[in-house]
């Protein structure tokens, strides 16, 4: 069994990698890369060669390529010769400005050295010719540039992605020689009143802590790095994007670390648990008066849930509701086949299976808004909690329909089986037969779908979150596609694919647990 499970997990990881490779190949080779500049203000402000150079800098940042700049090359060359005074030397300036003359730059020996060095490595060259007015003055942003470009291979990109996928903080993470005291230890947490695991030398100060936010216990030790956002959240890590609370700032009465132990309180939205290390040289004067150590980079407390939290809360509640309501109705439908409830239930099943989700979502939104005055747009809702009600119900509806359908189907199948006829002949009451025999056997099939339906509600989130405008993972993907954000598209593919692969394995395991006759590994008799 363990061996089987190990094999399954290994194969799932393999599938995930294949899917990521395919998505990366498609996204990075088929999508016009300049699309990332459509919403970029910096790009708009730049002109001529400066814009061209900026594009390459961004391409490098987003992992399309790596490049070497001639100017840096010259600089490094002369630093070696003259040390810090290199910029005063006339031969440095002559070499540096050689590329400002399109006609003769290739005759300069340093340029030749640059070209030869990177041609040998298989780089391509991009020369931005200096742009001059007729008077000979350089146009704004028209300075010449010479770049050696190495287009990143998809497998290199994948390798980097996988290598950076998991990260674990250690006390050696901070490269600041001024920090001598490095440790990880239990400390009393002044903000929660409980204890916390506190690190020094790690990126985050609080590695494990409690607070009053769901899920109440948090950690910064281990993280999954899903990549970097391109356009939607310029340059931010996607893991941060999905795990950072959304909504308005939440100001509370707190104490800065330096005030701890005194009676000085400040109204601030800073989340003191989120602090990360700041190099000694970069500490501002204000920070020195507020903090006692170098952990001064913080994020804010917000009133909303995290992006992932939004999706999960709605997904879990709707799945629970679907099971709690759908199963009893399915059973009742089967018991009185062709009765009133059965007909109504069947009509509902047909409606939910046929009608496009978007259509019934809006029907529900209009109904809930008109009758119960529930908000149907998340952004404009005054009480955010109420804004979750309609989307959660919308997510419940399809799961409810399919559970009713299958529960009814399985119950009816079981009712006609021989063992039920035998039980009836033995004189068991109908109630006992249903409770002890039929329900249990029918449940076996239902159990298999539990992880899948949690997943389904998350995928259903694509439509629901988009329709109601809820900041969750589903809407994140749709928005990312609109903004040509390759980073988020890849990250969300990883996220959803791993969820679905996990739910398939979990479903099989639950099935084997629920039904002792089923053996997953073929070596244990029976087999499949």
């Amino acid at each position: 069994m363990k061996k089987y499970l190990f094999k399954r997990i290994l194969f799932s990881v393999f599938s995930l990698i294949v899917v990521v490779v395919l998505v990366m190949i498609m996204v990075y080779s088929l999508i016009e890369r300049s699309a990332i500049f459509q919403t970029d203000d910096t790009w708009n402000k730049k002109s001529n060669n400066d814009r061209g150079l900026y594009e390459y800098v961004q391409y490098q940042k987003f992992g399309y390529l790596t490049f070497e700049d001639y100017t840096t090359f010259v600089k490094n060359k002369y630093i070696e010769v003259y040390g810090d005074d290199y910029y005063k030397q006339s031969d440095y300036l002559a070499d540096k400005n050689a590329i400002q003359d399109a006609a003769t730059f290739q005759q300069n020996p340093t340029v030749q050295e640059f070209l030869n060095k990177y041609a040998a490595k298989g780089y391509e060259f991009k020369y931005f010719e200096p742009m001059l007015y007729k008077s000979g003055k350089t146009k704004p942003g028209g300075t010449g540039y010479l770049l050696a470009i190495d287009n990143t291979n998809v497998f290199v990109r994948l390798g980097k992605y996988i290598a950076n996928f998991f990260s674990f903080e250690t006390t050696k993470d901070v490269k600041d020689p001024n920090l001598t005291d490095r440790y990880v230890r239990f400390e009393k947490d002044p903000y929660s009143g409980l204890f916390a695991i506190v690190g020094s030398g790690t990126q985050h100060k609080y590695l494990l802590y409690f607070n009053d936010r769901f899920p109440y216990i948090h950690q910064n030790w281990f993280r999954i790095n899903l990549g970097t956002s391109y356009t939607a959240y310029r340059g931010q890590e996607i893991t941060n994007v999905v795990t950072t609370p959304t909504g308005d700032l939440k100001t509370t009465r707190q104490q800065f670390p330096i005030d701890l132990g005194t009676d000085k309180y400040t109204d601030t939205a800073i989340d003191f648990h989120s602090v990360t290390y700041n190099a000694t040289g970069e500490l501002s004067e204000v920070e020195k008066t507020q903090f006692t150590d170098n952990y001064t980079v913080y994020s804010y407390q917000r009133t909303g849930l995290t992006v992932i939290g939004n999706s999960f809360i709605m997904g879990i509640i709707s799945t629970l509701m679907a099971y709690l309501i759908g199963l009893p109705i399915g059973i009742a439908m089967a018991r009185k086949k062709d009765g009133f409830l059965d007909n109504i239930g069947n009509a509902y099943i047909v409606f939910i299976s046929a009608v496009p989700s978007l259509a019934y979502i809006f029907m529900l939104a209009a109904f809930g808004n008109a009758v119960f005055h529930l908000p149907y747009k998340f952004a404009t809702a005054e009480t955010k909690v109420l804004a979750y009600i309609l989307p959660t119900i919308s997510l419940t509806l399809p799961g409810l329909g399919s559970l009713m359908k299958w529960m009814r189907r399985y119950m009816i199948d079981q009712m006609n089986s021989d063992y039920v006829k035998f039980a009836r002949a033995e004189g068991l009451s109908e109630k006992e037969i249903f409770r002890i025999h039929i329900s249990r056997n029918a449940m076996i099939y239902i159990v298999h779908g539990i992880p899948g339906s949690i997943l389904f509600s998350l995928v259903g989130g694509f439509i629901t979150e988009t329709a109601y405008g809820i900041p969750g993972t589903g809407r994140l993907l749709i928005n990312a596609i609109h903004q040509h954000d390759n980073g988020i598209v890849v990250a969300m593919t990883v996220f959803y694919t791993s969820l679905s692969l996990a739910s398939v394995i979990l479903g099989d395991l639950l099935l084997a647990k629920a039904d002792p006759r089923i053996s997953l590994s073929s070596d244990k008799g029976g087999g499949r």
Partner: protein
Amino acid sequence: MEEMMNLSPEQENELFRFLGEDEKASSEKIIAPRYSYWKSVFRVFFRKKSNIILLTLFILLLVSAFIIPLIFPYDVMENVTDSSSYNLSPTAAMTKYGGSIKYLLGTGSSGNSIFLGIFASAQTSLKLAFICAAINMFIGVVLGAVWGYSKKVDSVMLVFYNIFGNIPGLLVQSVLVYVIGSGFWSLVIAFTLFGWLGVAFFFRTQVMIIRDREYSLASRCLGTPINRIISRNVLPFLTSVIVTVLASEVPGYISSEVFLSYAGLGLSASVPSLGRMIQNGQTAFITYPWTFWPPVIMASLVAMILYLLGQHLADASDPRTHML
């Protein structure tokens, strides 16, 4: 017995005679009631009055979705220069345009006719759903039959299925649309590139079940070639299963198209689409309800009619319902 053996030739002639040439053929036939599969399917199908109503509705929908846009070509930008034509209620639009049937349901946010819009968009949805269903069902059934029959193919395809089969369809479609770009045919590609996989896997399992039935084993023992077993033993058995799958696939494509166009990922702006109409009407669905509800209802109606029709056709195509 003794007496029987000693019959004289005369006596034998009285009891037996040789058949004439024309009688030989008919004597070989076994007399049974004539059974034609498709005739029985339609007999069972038309026995229910609700099916006749559904079929009439379907034909009506088909005709109006394909004929109305021919008579009155739909153009979103038709009245875009005249801002007084924007968001007119049905009555206001009817008075403004002198009771023209084009403005029966009012106008949308750019003065476009809602009535023409929903039929032109329904045409797009129907076309897309049928093209995608045809491609996916064809590839799915043919490959599924081979997949289920050959154990070698099975081991290869299972790996392929385990990699791609568990990824949510909407994710695949969204990412594909992102990569290929928007438009009718890119949507067809997005729906079919991996869409057949689920269908094929379903049929693989069905074929496996039938493959090992006794009559198939008997055929194999008699040396019937595989493709003949598939086409004669397996596929006829699957007709009703095929129709059932088709009935649930078609509304699925409509639903996906509506959502993707709504999210601005599906069809390009020039193609009339229910999803886009819903998106346009959504912002003002309380102030201008007539711009919003017609496309929602149309989308529901199209999907519902197709689903019910498919389910009932599937019931009728199951030979077990053919017994009187």
